[in-house]
């Protein structure tokens, strides 16, 4: 196989079908960009899960004086130090099988944290330190086993509620998973458009070069030699699409790193290295897919 001959054939073929080639390149680029985005969102969710699950805590809140009127489980008024210590001892029994660490946050500390985070809130003026509950902040060995803490301490004397911060994150992850699914579905649609376009382009290309391929078959060129220019043509168009898709992903990454990251600081965004890992995958998948589509089309339209 002479490389120069094949390359010149590819060049001629692509130029001859310029509009179709552009359509293939753009649709492949969009579907691969969406595929890449879908993969990256999954990475992002995994990385956030790792990052946040490490930080999330289960909080065992104790009754305050104010809760006595509103919450039935706090009818006896604020939790006593004995009740707090009893829960603390219970947590110690679960260490280290379930609980990793525990820290106590007094009402005064909790009030200060709350004030720091909401300095402008009008409630700061109204609420006193008494209104914010004291709590045990518990880090779990396995953040998904929140239910053990829940069943062990909910309803114990002086305990107002057991809350899992993970629940707040679950909403966020749910949203991201939804986005990933949406990207995936759109990707599938775009992909079928891209595949149909490739099939059509190869058909048109095979038709416009039927004179050449007819002569090639006549003089005994092997199937590989006859089909190679078409397959290489489709693969090359897909390569252009993949490169374009990679550019789009890098651009998106740049935007996230330089714009979004400075505005949304509580999320740790995945970086360039993740994008660079996805790009070779896109190129290989794009070219392989196009080559297979072309090959299957040719089996039908270029018979021996």
């Amino acid at each position, binding site marked *: *196989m*002479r490389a120069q*001959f094949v390359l010149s054939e590819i060049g001629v073929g692509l130029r001859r079908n310029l509009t179709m080639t552009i359509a293939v390149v753009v649709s492949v680029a969009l579907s691969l960009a969406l595929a890449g985005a879908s993969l990256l969102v999954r990475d992002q969710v995994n990385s956030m899960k790792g990052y946040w699950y490490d930080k999330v805590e289960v909080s065992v809140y104790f009754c305050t004086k104010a809760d006595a009127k509103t919450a039935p489980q706090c009818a006896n008024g604020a939790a006593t130090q004995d009740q707090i210590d009893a829960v603390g001892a219970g947590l110690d029994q679960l260490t280290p099988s379930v609980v990793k660490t525990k820290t106590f946050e007094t009402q005064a500390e909790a009030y200060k944290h709350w004030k720091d985070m909401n300095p402008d809130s009008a409630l700061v003026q109204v609420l006193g330190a008494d209104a914010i509950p004291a709590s045990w902040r518990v880090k779990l060995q396995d953040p998904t086993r929140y239910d053990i803490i829940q069943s062990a301490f909910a309803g114990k004397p002086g305990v107002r509620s057991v809350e899992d911060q993970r629940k707040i994150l679950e909403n966020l992850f749910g949203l991201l998973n939804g986005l990933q699914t949406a990207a995936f579905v759109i990707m599938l649609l775009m992909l079928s458009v891209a595949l149909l376009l490739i099939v059509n382009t190869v058909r048109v290309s095979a038709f416009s070069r039927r*004179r*050449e391929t*007819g*002569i*090639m*078959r*006549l*003089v*005994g*060129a*092997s*199937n590989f*030699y*006859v089909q190679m220019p078409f397959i290489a043509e489709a693969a090359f168009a897909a390569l252009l699409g993949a490169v374009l898709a990679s550019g789009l992903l890098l651009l998106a990454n740049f935007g996230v790193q330089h714009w979004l990251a400075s505005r949304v600081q509580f999320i740790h965004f995945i970086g360039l290295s993740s994008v660079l890992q996805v790009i070779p995958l896109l190129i290989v998948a794009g070219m392989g897919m196009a080559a297979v589509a072309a090959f299957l089309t040719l089996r039908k339209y270029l018979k*021996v």
Partner: protein
Amino acid sequence: MIRFDNVSKTYPKQNRPALSEVSLEIEKGEFVFLVGSSGSGKSTFLRLCLREERPSTGSVHVLGKDLGKLSNWKVPHMRRQLGTVFQDFRLLPNKTVAQNVAFALEVIGKPKGAINKVVPEVLDLVGLGGKEDRMPGELSGGEQQRVAIARAFVNRPMLLIADEPTGNLDPQNSVGIMKLLDRINRTGTTVLMATHDQAIVDQMRKRVIELDKGLLVRDQTRGVYGYQH
């Protein structure tokens, strides 16, 4: 070289077979005319020889191979051992004379050095020396057919199959082409030529095979076109 054993060919959705129980043998080095009116089965006969079709029944042997048993991927290799020429020349209009001939060698993976050596030789042989860089459109019909013959002969095939090679040519050019085919035949290449050209067949006095409605009706050494039977 070519052997047909009880070969019939029926195309789908056609009642009458295009070729019916044809048996014949063409020896190495022969020059054979295949004659018959349109629809007599000439084209089917040639397509079976080239393995563009497979027989419905019977067997076709070409160059010692049973084409019915030849697997698809071996067909290209088989075709490299025979040359084909058509009425419509089948040249590439955007390539020069030399490039047209070279194309046939490029696509079967011949090295560049060998191509550069044999292309001028074969063009000289067919009488196109000095016209290597012309485009097919600048040539007369006879010259274009010479290019096609050069392309078919450049691999020095054992068998040359020509489907009405003079069909588009005036009598003078036809004679030139026939002289060329005769010369090729004298190098030892078997030539099988389908034709309507009565004058040529009568003049050449070679073996004539006549088909009529798919039946082999005449096989005559040193025959003429219009033999009454």
